[in-house]
């Protein structure tokens, strides 16, 4: 009895424990029962099950507490402060190099396994171990063939197949089919491991491109490269297909898919007719492939549509249920059918609805591109209906084209200049896991479009808020974004912001972009501002000046243009920095440019303010030496507005006589 009492009391302790962590529903039900029972009679005690935690639960909870830091670059760049990206180009480069470093390490382990002999761990962690890529089964047998197919060794499989065939062994249909799968997927038998390692680099790049994180565990996939290898006449797949003693629907289907994938559309169509002649049925993937091949089979829009309809009808006849990829393929083909596409897209969508197939994001992407191909079809009807649908649902990826939706939708918003739609779209992006559809490159172009639209349509303070919120952490502005931003600042009369924008430009590495420099300078020098701002502008101008003048090291410096020089001079003059302004004036002569009247007037004003008649006289000299018609006017201004000493008056007089003479350069130099 004593023991029982101990047991029961410890049992109660457990209960109170489990009550405290009342998250697990299964414990809760068990708990309810036991409480009831202990109160009632001595019935059987239902013991609570052991609570199993999701291995990710803790981490997920913790991760959800971390918010994006708008001032920081993406987490993947945090390792090394030296490798913090400055703009989208470097961000792309660094992320790619990180991934390629990983792949390089894997490659080394794979190529030189004998250097890594201390790979035993206790407990053993299989996922850290290098993969076995060499076949284990020796000899010529169907087993060995199957293993090589599973290891995706294209050439070895084909060789083994031939050997088996020569030996007179019959190979099962299933194995032959999977060999066909392999051959059709990779396009041709010639792709060997060696060739793959050659191709590795560019493949990886595109792979990383498609998804930053995808680490290729197998030999590089050709899936993302539809044109990496073309279907060749009488390649191994065709050869094996021809000598197959019996073929089933799968053999035909995989051939068709391979041909479509590798650009042999006409052959695929012929193969499809052969399949029909052999009284087989195609599967849904094959039909999907055939529908995507339609634009290559027919040239005229109506014929294309007729062919699509034929395939769909065949599907219905062969009792193949379409899936969302089928309709995506139809719409994708309709994209290339002009007006027919526009008129048939809606019935296709209706058909999907009737079959209760939920559209994926790719469906909407195709729709948008069908209806908004040309920018002047300005009606926001379709896109707002699409957004209605998108807002209602959360999406899981179903089609490789899904990722394109948000970008093209934002592009449509930009084309329509509809900021409200853009906000709605952005809400949809932020909803749930939708943000995951935008990988790094896409994210950048999405935000850069959004930002341009904001600059164009929004109040400046809203623009600034967005800018602060997203600038380094979500995207790196493109030069065009900066131009738009500058224009927005101009439109809102917030030019005093320009120095800070200039700082950002330097940060982004745009300080040598001539178009941006010109824009910044012309905006700063256009109007007169309060003194404080003028001082800041002058500082900015000095920066720009050093950009123009720093030479050597790695790149050529930016060439001065006349207008840039003029603007810098004006900015210095307005800030009262006479000496700097004069040095700019001299530069005009050096690069054989002519200052405008405005520039010279501003300089004269400056000289007057700082009471430096010498500079004023120098200016007149300069003007005279350049033979400018305004030199007379300047001279009279100097005479009137400045208190000149005798010497200075003389100097001024001498300029007069010089400029009268036709050749003034040498004379003024002598003075």
């Amino acid at each position: 009895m004593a023991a029982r009492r101990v047991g029961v009391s410890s049992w109660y302790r457990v209960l109170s424990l489990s009550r405290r962590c009342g998250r697990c529903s299964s414990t809760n039900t068990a708990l309810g029962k036991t409480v009831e029972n202990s109160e009632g009679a001595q019935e059987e005690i239902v013991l609570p099950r052991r609570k199993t935690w999701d291995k990710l639960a803790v981490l997920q909870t913790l991760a959800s507490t971390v918010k994006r830091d708008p001032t920081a670059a993406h987490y993947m760049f945090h390792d090394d402060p030296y490798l913090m990206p400055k703009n989208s180009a470097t961000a792309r480069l660094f992320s790619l190099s990180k991934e390629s470093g990983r792949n390089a390490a894997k490659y080394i382990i794979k190529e030189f396994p004998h250097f890594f002999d201390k790979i035993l761990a206790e407990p053993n962690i299989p996922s850290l171990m290098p993969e076995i890529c060499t076949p284990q089964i020796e000899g010529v047998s169907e087993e060995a063939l199957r293993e090589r197919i599973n290891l995706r060794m294209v050439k070895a499989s084909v060789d083994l197949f031939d050997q088996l065939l020569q030996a007179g062994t019959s190979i099962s249909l299933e194995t032959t089919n999977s060999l066909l799968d392999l051959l059709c997927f990779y396009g041709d038998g010639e792709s060997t491991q060696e060739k793959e390692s050659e191709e590795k680099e560019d493949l990886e790049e595109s792979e990383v491109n498609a998804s930053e994180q995808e680490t290729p565990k197998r030999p590089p996939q050709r899936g993302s490269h539809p044109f990496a290898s073309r279907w060749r006449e009488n390649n191994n797949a065709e050869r094996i297909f021809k000598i197959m003693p019996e073929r089933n629907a799968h053999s035909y289907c995989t051939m068709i898919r391979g041909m479509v994938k590798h650009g042999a559309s006409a052959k695929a169509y012929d193969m499809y007719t052969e399949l029909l002649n052999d009284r087989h049925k195609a599967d849904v993937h094959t039909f999907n492939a055939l529908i995507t091949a339609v634009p290559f089979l027919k040239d005229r829009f109506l014929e294309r549509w007729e062919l699509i309809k034929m395939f769909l009808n065949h599907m219905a006849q062969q009792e193949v249920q379409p899936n969302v990829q089928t309709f995506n393929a139809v719409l994708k083909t309709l994209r290339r059918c002009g007006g027919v596409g526009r008129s048939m897209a809606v019935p296709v969508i209706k058909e999907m609805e009737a079959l209760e197939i939920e559209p994926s994001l790719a469906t909407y992407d195709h729709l948008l591109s069908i209806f908004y191909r040309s920018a002047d079809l300005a009606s926001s009807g379709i896109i707002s209906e699409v957004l209605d649908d998108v807002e209602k649902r959360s999406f899981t990826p179903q089609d490789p084209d899904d990722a394109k939706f948000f970008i093209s939708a934002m592009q449509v918003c930009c084309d329509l200049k509809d900021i409200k739609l853009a906000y709605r779209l952005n809400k949809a992006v932020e909803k749930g896991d939708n943000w995951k559809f935008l990988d790094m490159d896409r994210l950048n172009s999405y935000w850069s479009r959004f930002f341009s639209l904001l600059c164009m349509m929004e109040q400046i303070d809203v623009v600034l808020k967005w800018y602060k919120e997203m600038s380094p952490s979500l995207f790196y502005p493109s030069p065009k974004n900066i131009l738009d931003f500058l224009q927005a600042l101009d439109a809102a009369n917030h030019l005093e912001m320009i120095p800070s924008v200039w700082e950002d430009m330097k940060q982004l590495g745009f300080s040598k972009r001539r178009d941006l420099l010109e824009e910044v300078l012309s905006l700063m020098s256009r109007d007169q501002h309060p003194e404080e701002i003028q001082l800041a502008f002058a500082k900015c101008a000095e920066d720009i000046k050093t950009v123009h003048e720093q030479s050597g090291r790695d790149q050529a410096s930016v060439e001065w243009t006349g207008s840039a020089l003029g603007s810098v001079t004006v900015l210095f003059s307005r800030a009262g920095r006479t000496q700097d302004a004069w040095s700019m004036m001299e530069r005009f002569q050096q690069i054989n440019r002519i200052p405008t009247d405005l520039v010279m007037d501003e300089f004269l004003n400056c000289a007057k303010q700082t009471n430096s008649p010498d500079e004023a006289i120098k200016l007149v000299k300069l003007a005279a030496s350049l033979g400018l018609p305004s030199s007379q006017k300047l001279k009279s201004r100097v005479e009137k507005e400045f208190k000149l000493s005798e010497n200075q008056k003389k100097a001024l007089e001498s300029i007069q006589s010089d400029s009268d003479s036709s050749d003034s350069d040498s004379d003024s130099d002598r003075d």
Partner: protein
Amino acid sequence: MWRFTAFEALLGPEDYNPDVTLPVHSSGAGRNAVARNARRSSRSRPAALKGRRGCERRAEGAMWGRLCGSGRILLLAGAARHCGRPHRTQKLFSTSSVLSATEDEPTAPTDSTTKVASKEGAAETPKQKLLKMIGDMKVEVTTKRKFQQLKEQEIKKQATNKQEGLHGGSSTFQNSAEDVQRSKPLNPELVQAASAVASSFPHNKEQAESELLAQLRRHEETTDKQRRGGTINICNVISEMTVKRQSPAQRGVRISNRISLEMDEDGQRIKPGRPSSHSDSGRSLKAGKRLNIFTKASPETENALKTVSSPTIWDLEFAKEIAAVTEQPPRNGFEEMIQWTKEGILWEFPIDNEAGMDDGAEFHEHIFLEKHLKDFPKQGPIRHFMELVICGLSKNPYLSVKQKIEHIEWFRNYFEEKKEFLQEI
């Protein structure tokens, strides 16, 4: 091939202009362009005629003899199609112009008038300059700023009108009585061309000429009317009002305006007059019929379809591709740890002392060991001893349940073996 020679002769061999074919496919506006081309190119007519009249007369006569009604100009253009290379230029034109009806005019004259001017000399140069200027105005169409674009279109339109006015003003060849009757005179070159053609007729020269001119004027008028219709459309776009009623003429011009937009990635041009393009503003995803090809599958058949064999390489790769769509690099340290956990290269959280020694036993099996004491005496020192043993075992975290039971088993066997001795005691 007599048609070809006739046409070539009419234009002068080097003077023929590929863009003549542009209107072949299009309706109102395009036809206008043919007229314009005819009128432009025929400036060189007198020069060409003088040298070649003799040889070409027969052919021309045959050609014009076969023409009738409004088919004339089109046939003329059709002849041009035989000349080989028009298609490229045609593409070029239609992609560059947003509104082909209005914009053809500023662009087209530049090239042809240059050629003409070289023949006709200095008299034409001021006009040519102006034309060029107007032509240049066109270039600045940015797709980015819609409103600006619209404004530019308006300007262009004015420019076009001006240009035409100028044509009228500078004309010195206006001789037919019809011109006075109409408010807007025909282009002098056109008139000249017509008279030139008519003069090559053996009989009824005047009648032929006036017929030609009347036909051309008809084109001119319809174009004008439709162009005004086009303006209305633009206004509607500006005010973002939907147009409920449209006259067939307006619709026609809208469609022909669109033709240039119906180009597709493979350079195909769809037939004009397809009614789809004008109803875009009213299009909705909600309204419309379905295709009615498929029937919804019943759940059983759906299930039947799902029993497929093992995944092929296609399925695997497709799954990978799909997964890649939403793959994202980790955004913070925790997400990175999640990723590592998924890859199996990180200790699982919460970290406990049983990691790696999971025997699948529940905690109560570890703690409540009384049930294993059934075979022992109910009381006495052995029972007491065993109770102490299981108490100890229940607190021992290092042994698995199996080991604990084995431990108790050992004692059971032990006491069983020593039973005799114990009973002796």
